[in-house]
């Protein structure tokens, strides 16, 4: 693997980390592209080549993973969780959640168990496909 390819991966990982941190904000492709040192026009293509999915899909899964966490560990109303994780409508949230997780937020909350393991592992292993 060339040094340039390693550098490209590392920069894309930096952009992905930025999405992980600011998951509730609208996706700012120009800002992410700057972090990754590519043009906005190339960002989605290079991200997809690196991680196997588009930035939009990655962000959706991140938001749903955060929603799953809040459903498991809090009693916050589902509508509040929807906006807190970055969705702008409850309809889109419910549809996306069901599409990714396979059940509604309400059903997921009823069956899920909170866990006390370090958060990086729960984040990685509960992130839905």
């Amino acid at each position, binding site marked *: 693997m060339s040094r340039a390819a*390693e550098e490209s*991966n590392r920069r*894309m*990982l930096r952009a992905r980390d930025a999405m*992980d*941190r600011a998951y509730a904000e609208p996706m700012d492709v120009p800002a992410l592209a700057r972090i990754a040192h590519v043009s906005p026009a190339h960002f989605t293509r290079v991200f997809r080549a690196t991680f196997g999915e588009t930035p939009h899909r990655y962000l959706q899964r991140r938001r749903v993973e955060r929603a799953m966490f809040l459903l498991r560990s809090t009693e916050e109303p589902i509508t509040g969780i929807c906006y807190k994780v970055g969705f702008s409508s409850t309809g889109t949230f419910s549809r996306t959640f069901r599409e990714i997780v396979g059940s509604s937020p309400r059903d997921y909350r009823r069956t899920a168990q*909170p866990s006390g393991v*370090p*958060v*990086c592992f729960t984040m990685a292993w509960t992130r839905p496909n």
Partner: protein
Amino acid sequence: MFTAITHSQIFVLDQNEAVDFYVGTLGLEIHTDADLGFMRWLTINVPGRPDRQILLSLPGGPSMSPETADQLRELVTKGAAGGTLILATDDCRKTYETLRSRGVEFTEEPTERPYGIDCGFRDPFGNHIRMTQPLPA
């Protein structure tokens, strides 16, 4: 049967750069840095805890094809090599500020968890490291 974990290992892409980061920036100590001819045996430990070493090794060597080494390097730079370390601290927020001022790339700010306060950051290669201030026993 077993009495301790003495060594763990993570892949780094450049051992000199790894020393700069793990020792110079994070403040860990070099336990052993030995040129064995066939490899550089480089281990570090938390100050005062030489019983628990972390081997900083390069992907490669005769046990691994160049293609496999390339795959490993790729995984490290994508943050997918699985080389997670969890370091304990007695003050997560203070250490966070110190390391941030030294240019460490944080993935997550200090956050209260059921098990304590913790945050995440990356080494220069892409490995994920966590820092945890455990709840008082």
